[in-house]
């Protein structure tokens, strides 16, 4: 602490250089924070996945449906507590850019297998009773200023035509990472219209969702389900919800990989910038370090001065970057349709990575200047003319 004044004076000896370095670090930290938040937001579905939930889909691809008739057979597999199913509806709400998940679900069982979607019992009862009822997430209601009783119409694409609904329930998320941007309506409503308009597509479900008693039995139960439909025209692939979501995300693996690479490259670049600043400072002060040595400062004490200076710049830049990251992430979340990133916030792991990156930048940038100051003798240092 007794060196703090000297460290601060040295850090801001060249005010323009120090300010530009701090701004550079702040920009890099902000970019790192936003990119990492995008990456973590992408994986939020994996984090939110329940370990006691299995997804059973068509073995070829989840875009191909499964027969409704599989329901009873799957439900009979030992270890399964509850079963539900759903179809990805797609469609357009008001405008194509309004993206969020719209699902035709089994109204009787959907909220049994997704207990993290909290809904009032009277709203759930109405949802089950009315054919054209729908339930939406609280975030979605907030985004489009919707309330119970409001009509909600979709223009179908996978299932063509105009689809009219009435909002009869608004679910709230149980956890921070629970997606509250989805819309659910009755699968029966969908199936009845398909029976009329496209009978060849009727009685199909997108995938089955099952809740199992013991998560440790997931692999065994998955195998048992898939064996039931082996060699059928619609073979199944069952896996935990986490694996299913991860598989879904893997389609975007290259983009996420590039984002990860970019975020760490930014840290590496700014580390070189700060290291360069510190090297210049140390080089300019070669003579001063020699003077300090003559006054009795030891090499470790001079190393602390250099390290302290490097940490002051990196921490100030990092703190500024963190301050900028929060509103930028908020702005990004507001600008991007809610359905793209249902949960878009700075995760604790991102904060931890940011802080670690800032400290690492400060430490690593001081290594070469310290080595130089330590290895230069007093006599050589005194002769240095910069």
């Amino acid at each position, binding site marked *: 602490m007794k*060196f703090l004044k000297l460290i601060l004076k040295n850090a801001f000896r060249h005010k323009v250089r120090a300010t530009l370095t701090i701004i550079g670090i702040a920009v890099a930290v902000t970019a790192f924070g936003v990119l990492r938040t995008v990456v973590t937001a992408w994986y939020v579905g994996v984090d939110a996945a329940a370990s006691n939930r299995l997804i059973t889909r068509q073995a070829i691809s989840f875009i191909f449906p499964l027969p409704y008739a599989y329901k009873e057979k799957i439900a009979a597999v030992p270890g399964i507590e509850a079963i539900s199913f759903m179809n990805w509806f797609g469609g357009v709400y008001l405008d194509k850019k309004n993206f969020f998940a719209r699902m035709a679900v089994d109204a009787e069982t959907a909220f049994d297998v997704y207990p993290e979607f909290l809904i009032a019992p009277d709203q759930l009862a109405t949802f089950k009773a009315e054919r054209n009822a729908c339930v939406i997430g609280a975030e979605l209601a907030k985004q489009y200023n919707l309330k119970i009783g409001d009509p909600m119409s979709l223009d179908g694409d996978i299932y063509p035509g105009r689809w009219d609904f009435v909002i009869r329930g608004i679910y709230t998320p149980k956890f921070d990472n629970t997606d509250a941007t989805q819309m659910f309506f009755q699968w029966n409503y969908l199936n009845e219209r398909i029976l009329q308009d496209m009978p060849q597509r009727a009685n199909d479900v997108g995938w089955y969702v099952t809740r199992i008693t013991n998560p440790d039995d997931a692999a065994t139960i998955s195998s048992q389900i898939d064996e039931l439909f082996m060699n059928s025209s619609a073979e199944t692939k069952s896996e935990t919800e986490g694996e299913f979501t991860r598989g879904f995300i893997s389609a975007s693996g290259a983009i996420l990989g590039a984002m990860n690479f970019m975020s760490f490259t930014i840290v590496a670049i700014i580390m070189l910038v700060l290291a360069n600043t510190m090297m210049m400072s140390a080089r300019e002060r070669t003579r001063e370090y020699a003077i300090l*040595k003559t006054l009795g400062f030891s090499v470790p004490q001079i190393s602390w001065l250099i390290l302290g200076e490097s940490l002051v710049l990196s921490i100030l830049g990092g703190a500024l970057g963190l301050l900028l990251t929060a509103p930028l992430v908020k702005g990004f979340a507001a600008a991007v349709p809610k359905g793209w990133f249902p949960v878009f916030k700075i995760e604790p792991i991102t904060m931890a990575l940011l802080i670690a990156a800032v400290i690492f930048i400060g430490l690593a940038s001081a290594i070469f200047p310290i080595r130089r100051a330590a290895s230069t003798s007093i006599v050589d240092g005194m002769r240095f003319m910069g």
Partner: protein
Amino acid sequence: MPHLIEIKALAKSYWRDGFEIPVLNNININVEKGDYLALMGPSGSGKSTLLNLIAGIDRPSKGEVVVDGTNIAKLGESELARWRANNIGFIFQFYNLIPVLTAYDNVGLPLLLTKLGKAEQKKHIETALSIVGLGDRMKHYPKQLSGGQEQRVAIARAIVTDPQILVADEPTGDLDRNSAEEILTLMKRLNEEFGKTIIMVTHDPHAAESAKKTLNLEKGDLIGSSK
């Protein structure tokens, strides 16, 4: 009574591009407590190297430098740094003050290495600055001071820890005549009034006159002394 500084068979060589360049050869000097010694000689005679060896900022190739019973050539780097902090005050030709620190903070630098509290440090700094006549310039930065004033701040920094030995390398070399005279008067006062042992390297015969004794070096050899 033992000598304050005993220099025995001291030699120093530097290596440049594979060649050994001898700088000092077999130097033997005794310095008593309270001495004021001037080291004179032409450029390249080895006087600054000798001063560096006495002050423990360079290491001899051969021989010993024993200061107050301690053979400083045998001290490790950290021990030597501590020894310098406790025993030596440095005065340089170009003052070598830290430009971003005030006169007060520059003088206080060596005290950062002590266990003195803030109040005690303040007392030491104010005393040192008042001895050199700059009690009213404490808040000034080096660039706000004249050359002579900067050198007086450097002297205050050298004496703030009350070391018994002051080493000065061309302390008047960068000053005008009047400022040089002030510095020489101040150094004489430090020697006579405060009992500091001073070893000064100088080109200037007038500066050397203020010392009690002058040693002459040439091509690394001690060629004589005069009163």
